[in-house]
């Protein structure tokens, strides 16, 4: 398959995928050593989806995310220093230490939040699409959700609303085969989530979510439709998370054999070998990108460590626009 992407774009995509992977690995280690509080849900193994989709978007577009949202943010160009500071609960974090992993948010990059409630980002995507529609802009919205969200009424309400109002939305289902611990065969009686699009007359497609080219190609078509005012598309990306649902998950619900099978389909080596085979890049160039990514991660951790902790009274700010009103 020939890609229309220029070399420079491809390398940028590779850098983003690797940045997600290395960020998540660092978070895994910092969490294990007790330096990051709370819950974290890592995106390792699914990087091709966020990056393939983001490559089809413009800066002015919007995305809504999930509890597994770090990858979507980095793919959209979020600053990993501020993300790491947020995970440390520091004041320079994206949310001043009030959101953490599940609420990473950067409205300036069109990231309308990771979300701690499964499927809750979908109505928000509808609202962003509705806003673009009412303002007659040609902005597009990507609504990410997992296979686990698809049995939530909210997803169906949102798919239907987007179809009936013909909104500029690309629905991206990241099907990693498990709703937390429960396998997909125990949660739906269909083999492909994409089938759900048919109920709403939404064109739907299935792609290998570990192949960044396949994801990009599907996203490009869907984004073009959305931008042209032709309404929503549903893209189901088949993938697998390398880690458990959350860090600390003993993953007793998957077999080691199944994991090994999927690890062989890791999207990053797959992308690397494609780049090398196609003669797009040298091994030396990939090496220098890797070094650059390592440096960004080290900087992010240092930035997070050096960032001041919020003052305890800041806990009372940001409820209402006039903070004192929240206390009345």
């Amino acid at each position, binding site marked *: 398959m020939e890609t229309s992407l220029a070399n420079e774009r491809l390398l940028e995509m590779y850098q983003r995928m690797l940045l997600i992977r290395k960020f998540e690995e660092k978070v895994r280690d910092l969490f294990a050593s007790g330096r990051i509080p709370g819950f974290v849900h890592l995106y390792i193994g699914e990087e091709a989806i966020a990056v393939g989709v983001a490559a089809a978007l413009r800066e002015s577009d*919007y995305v*809504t995310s999930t509890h597994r949202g770090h990858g979507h943010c980095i793919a959209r160009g979020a600053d990993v220093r501020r993300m790491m500071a947020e995970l440390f609960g520091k004041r320079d974090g994206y949310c001043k230490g009030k959101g953490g992993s599940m609420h990473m948010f950067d409205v300036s990059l069109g990231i309308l939040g990771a979300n701690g*409630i499964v499927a*809750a980002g979908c109505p928000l995507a*509808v*609202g962003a699409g509705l*806003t673009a529609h*009412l303002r007659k802009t040609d902005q597009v919205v990507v609504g990410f959700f997992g296979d686990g969200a698809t049995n939530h009424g909210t997803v169906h309400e*949102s798919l239907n609303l987007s179809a009936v109002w013909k909104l500029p939305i690309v629905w991206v289902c990241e099907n990693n085969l498990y709703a937390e611990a429960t396998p997909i065969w125990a949660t739906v009686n269909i083999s492909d989530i994409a089938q759900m699009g048919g109920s709403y007359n939404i064109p739907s497609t299935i792609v290998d979510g570990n192949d960044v080219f396949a994801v990009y190609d599907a996203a490009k078509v869907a984004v073009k439709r959305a931008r042209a005012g032709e309404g929503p598309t549903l893209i189901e990306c088949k993938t697998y998370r390398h880690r458990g649902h959350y860090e600390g998950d003993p993953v007793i619900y998957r077999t080691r054999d199944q994991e090994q099978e999927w690890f062989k389909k890791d999207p990053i080596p797959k992308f690397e070998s494609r780049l090398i085979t196609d003669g797009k890049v040298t091994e030396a160039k990939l090496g220098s990108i890797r070094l650059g990514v390592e440096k960004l991660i080290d900087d992010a951790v240092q930035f997070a460590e050096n960032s001041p902790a919020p003052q305890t009274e800041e806990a009372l700010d940001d409820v209402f626009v006039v903070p004192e009103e929240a206390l009345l």
Partner: protein
Amino acid sequence: MSSRELTFAEAIREGIYQELKRDDRVFVMGEDVGFEDGAFRVTSGFLKEFGHERIRDTPISENGFVGAGVAAAILGMRPVVELMFADFTGVAMDQIYNQAGKLRYMSGGQVKVPLVIRMAMGGGLSAAAQHSQCLYSIFAHVPGLKIVVPSNSYDAKGLIISSIRADDPVMFFEHKALYDKKLGMVPDESYEIPLGKADVKRNGNDVTVVATAMMVHRALEAAEQLQKEGVSVEVIDPRTLVPLDRTAIFSSVKKTGRIVIVDEDYERCGFAAEVSALIAEHGFDLLDAPIIRVATRNVPIPFNPALEDAVIPNSERIKNAINEVMMA
């Protein structure tokens, strides 16, 4: 300033209408808001004048379209979402209390949420247990939502205008038994009533009655009757529960030394309990008698009109409570 008598519904309608005319970011969304002029005719004639884009009939998907309103609000629109009955908040709860109420906070103040959710509440129509509740106490309990509960036409118009202009999410509760009542004079032009400002509905010296919505009218009836018996009752309508005008309540109690709180929401952990706790904590020395709450019994609202009347406070119960604090 010319004014005329309007029903409660007409007053709310006029407020929304004037905002639709003034600000093109304002739009109305909900079940039957256009095709049927709204379930209680509050949006009558809007569809014809403003069209389907701004007067948006939705499928019966409360969680979906409330969420759409949340995202439209954070992106700068001014959605006025109608939920028909307060009882239906249950199916949209996540988007109300986890998204609308928390996105500003969780994002570290990156966004404002200028959303209005309007709904009909209250008993007296034999609408039974799922169409008669008030429920505002639930939303006052959760941080991040402003709670507006008007009792007459003048307040309703000024408060709906302020709510639409507010930069925070507002839950606007309209008592359904008041809709067709002519409840006072209303100026033609647009005006705001600040959120967080109580109004003294009747001046008195012997006892303070705090009441909202329909209960204001019942408290005034009781006060009228008691006047003949030589008891001077002051009736205070907080108008907004969040933010709450504590000063107005405390200065009245300072004068009277006695307080009865009348609340059509359920008694347990309700708004009356909150006011009662505030007085007990911060105004104990002002009291000459124990605080009495008159609230809806802790049972679902029954269908039979006589049973319904037995559980929702009426002027007889209010009168008895006032007599009781007067005797203490």
